C-alpha cells in the first residue's frame, strides 16, 4: 500500500499487517468516512460490458447501492436464488435503478468468470440497466471481500466457494448509512432495505 494511504487510514496496523499486495489506487473523490477507513477500497474492476472502473470512485461514491459476491458456477444453489431475488427487487425499484440506486455483483472466481462469461450470465438472468456484474484481479477482489467482512472465522470454510456468504451489503455512501440484508429473504424485503435509508 502507498504510504499516503497508510496515513489516510485511521488504523495504522492495517498497512503493517495486510499481506495482500492489492492495487488499490488513491481515490480522486472526497471520501466518506467508511472509505477513508479503508472499507471501500478503490480497487480496479471490469464490468460485464468490458468497461474499466474503480470500485469507490465509480461505483460507490455518492450513490445508494446494494452489492454482493457470487460466482457463476455456484454449486450450493445460493447464488441463483439471490440473483433472482435481486432481479425482482430491481423491478420493484423501477426507475430508481441506475438513477440513484445501483446494484453490483462481484465474482469470487475472477479467473473463470471473465467478461464474456459475465455477459452471458447477465443475458440469461435478463438483468436490466443499473446493475453491473464485475470481475477483476483475484487479489483485489479478495481485499474487498475481507474488508467488507464476507468471511468466515474458520479458514477452511472461508476459502470454500461452495459455502459463501449470502448476504448483500446495502447502503448510501452519501448518507453514510450501511447495513446488510439476507439475499434469500424476498425481493420485497431487499427493495425495502434500500428504500428506507
Amino acid at each position, binding site marked *: 500500500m502507498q504510504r499516503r494511504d497508510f496515513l489516510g487510514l485511521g488504523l495504522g*496496523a492495517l498497512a503493517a499487517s495486510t499481506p495482500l499486495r492489492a492495487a488499490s489506487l488513491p481515490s480522486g473523490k472526497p471520501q466518506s468516512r467508511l472509505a477513508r477507513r479503508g472499507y471501500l477500497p478503490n480497487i480496479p474492476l471490469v464490468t460485464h460490458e468490458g468497461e474499466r472502473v474503480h470500485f469507490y470512485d465509480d461505483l460507490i461514491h455518492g450513490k445508494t447501492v446494494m452489492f454482493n459476491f457470487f460466482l457463476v458456477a455456484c454449486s450450493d444453489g445460493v447464488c441463483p436464488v439471490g440473483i433472482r431475488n435481486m432481479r425482482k427487487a430491481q423491478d420493484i425499484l423501477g426507475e430508481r435503478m441506475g438513477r440513484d440506486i445501483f446494484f453490483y455483483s462481484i465474482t469470487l472466481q475472477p479467473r473463470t468468470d471473465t467478461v464474456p462469461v459475465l455477459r452471458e450470465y447477465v443475458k440469461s438472468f435478463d438483468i436490466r440497466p443499473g446493475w453491473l456484474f464485475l470481475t477483476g484481479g483475484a487479489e483485489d477482489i479478495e481485499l474487498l471481500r475481507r474488508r467488507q467482512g464476507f468471511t468466515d472465522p474458520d479458514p477452511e470454510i472461508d476459502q470454500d466457494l461452495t459455502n459463501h456468504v449470502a*448476504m448483500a451489503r446495502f447502503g448510501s455512501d452519501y448518507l453514510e448509512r450501511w447495513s446488510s440484508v439476507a439475499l434469500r429473504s424476498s425481493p420485497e424485503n431487499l427493495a425495502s432495505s434500500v428504500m428506507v435509508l
Partner: protein
Amino acid sequence: MKQSDRIIKRTIDIQRELTREGLTRRNLLRLGVLGAGSGMLLPIQGLSMRAAFAKGSDELSCPVPGVGIISPQVCVPWKHELRRLVEKQPIDVDKISWGNGGGAPGPDPIGTLTGGDSKVRLLKDFSHLKNATPYENLSHQGWGKGGALGGFAPKKYYEMRMVQGKWNWHDDLTHFRGDGNLAWAFDGVFPGPMFRVRYGEPYFVRIHNDLPPGPSQLGFGNPIISTHLHNMHSPSESDGGPLYYNYPGHYWDYHYPMVYAGVNQYGGIGDPREALGTLFYHDHKLDFTSQNVYAGVLGMCSVYDDLDSGDPTESTGLRLPCGEDFEYDVGLAIHDRQFDPEGTDFFPLTCFDGALGDMPTVNGTIWPRMTVKRRRYRFRLLNMGPSRFLWYFLRVGDASDNPTYLPLDIIANDGNLLPRAVRVQSMKSAVAERFDVVVDFSQFAPGTELYLVNRAEQTNGRGPTGALLPHRQAIEMMKIVVSDEMPADNSLPVYPGRPLRALPDTSQAISRTKLWRWDRANGEWAVNGEIFDRFSKPYEIPEGTAEKWTIMNGGGSWSHPVHIHYEEHRQLTYNGQRPTPLEASRKDVIRLDPNAEVNIYMRFRDYKGIYPMHCHNVLHEDHAMMAMWKIV
C-alpha cells in the same frame, strides 16, 4: 508535531511493535504500555493476546481491540465521578408539543406524511402493517377502548426528544480531540433519562425524533428510530419493535397501560407475581439497531409496585434501598466502546460477528469512580454490549494474585425479583441481561476501594471463550470508593434466602410446543431454516395460551443472548439440566451458549399483535437473526 499527532503516532507505533514482535511482558514494559507511572494503561486489558495474534490480527472488518485498533491512550481511570442517570419528570399534558402536523396525546394517532405521529406515514409506506395490531391505524389498545384491557388512560405524561449533540466520554479524550464526540441522545444525555414508573399508573411518552435526516455525521446509524422498552408488557403498537419506524421530524406516541401480565386471567391489573423491575429502552430499528444503540439511543427504566415500593423512607413493601431522590437505587448501564487513534467513535460496519471495544464505560463515562456512603445500595446492572459478555465480580482492593471478591446478593434477574435472594461469587451476563444486586458498604472502613470487574475472556464478537480471565487481567470497569459518611439506613438487609416475590404458578397446561432452531448457513442467520423477512407471516399464537419453546443453538462458535418480547419466560431445562436457583426465576434473555438447547415455558396474554424474538448481540440482530410472532 502537535500533541495529538504525537499521541496518534505513538499509538500506531505501539500497534506496529506489538504486531511485529509478538507479545511478551518484557516487550510491553519496554514499550511503556504497562502502567509504569505514565498514567497510560494497557489498552488490551483482559485479552488473551497470544490467542488474538494466533488467529491473525489483520481482519479489518472485525478489528480486535488492542490488536487491530486501539483507542487513544489518554484517559486516566477513575478520574470522573459516576454520572447518575437524569431522573425523567412527567409534565402537564397541555405542555406536550404537537410537532409539525400532529395533535394532542390521545388514543388515535394524528399525523401527516411530513410530521406528527409517525404511524400515519409508516402505514402509507408499509400498508401490510395495518394487520400488525387489532387496530388498522395502530391505535392504542389500552386507551379509550372497552373491556378489561382497554380502559387504562394515562395518569402521567412524558415528552422526550432524540437529538444529536456532542458527548464528553472523558475529559482527557475530549481534550485530546479538541471536542466532544458526536452522539445521539435522549434529551441530550447518554444514557437517556431514568424513568421511574409504577403499576397502576398508566403513562404516555411522546418521543420526538429531532435527529438530522441527512448524512449520518457519526459515520454510522440511521436517524429513523424505534424505541423499545425492554421488556414491558406493552401492546404491540407501543412495543417499539423493528418495523415501527419513528421518522425524523415526526414523533411516536407510546402508551403503557402499566398492567401485570395476566389481566384476562386474573382480572384487575393482572397477576402481581408478574411484576417487572429493571427495564431499559433502546433503539430497535430494523437493520440498524446495533448502530443506533451505539450512537446513544438507550436509557433505563425502573418499575415499582406495592412490594418493590421505591419508597424514599424505605418503610413499605420489601424496604429495598431507595432514599431521597433514589440516591441508593442506582442504574448502571455498562458498555464497551471503541475509538480510533484520533479519538473518533469506531463501529465495525462490515463485521457480522459482533463489536468489542477497549474502553469500558458506565453511564456514559469511561472508567468512572463512584463514591458510596456506608450503607446499603441497590445496583441495577445492565449489560448494554454491543456484543461483550460479562462475568461480574466485585473485587475488594487492587488486583493481586489472590484478591478478595465480595459475595453478591442478587435480588432480581432480568428485572424480576427472585422468589428468594441468592448469594453468588459472581454472575455471567449476556448482552441485555440485568441483575439487581444489594451491597452493604457499612461493613467497610472509610477509604476502602472496590472494583466492579469483568473476568469473561472474550477475544472476538462471537462470544466468550468460557474461560475466566486470571485475577490480574480482570477488566476493571468502575471503581467504588467508600466515604466516611454513614447516613441512616432504613432499608432491610438482604440475606441469602430472604423471600422477595413469589413466582407465578405454571400449572396452566401447555397448548403447543415449538422448536426455534437458530442456524448459520452461508453467513446468514436462519430460524428453523427461514430467513427473516419483514413481510413474512408471523408465527400465530392464540391469546391466553401457554407454550413450551425449545430454543436451540444450531452450532458454530457463536453465543447468542436470545430475547423474546412482551412476556417473561420460565426456564425448564438448560442442556437437560434443571436451572440454577438464580435462573429459576422469570427472565427475558436466554444466554445461549454454543450448541446449547434450552426449554422454556411461556404464556402469551392480554394484548394482541406482533412481537419479535431475536438475538440480542445486536450485530446479529441487524443481520436478520430474528423471527416475528403474533398474539391473535
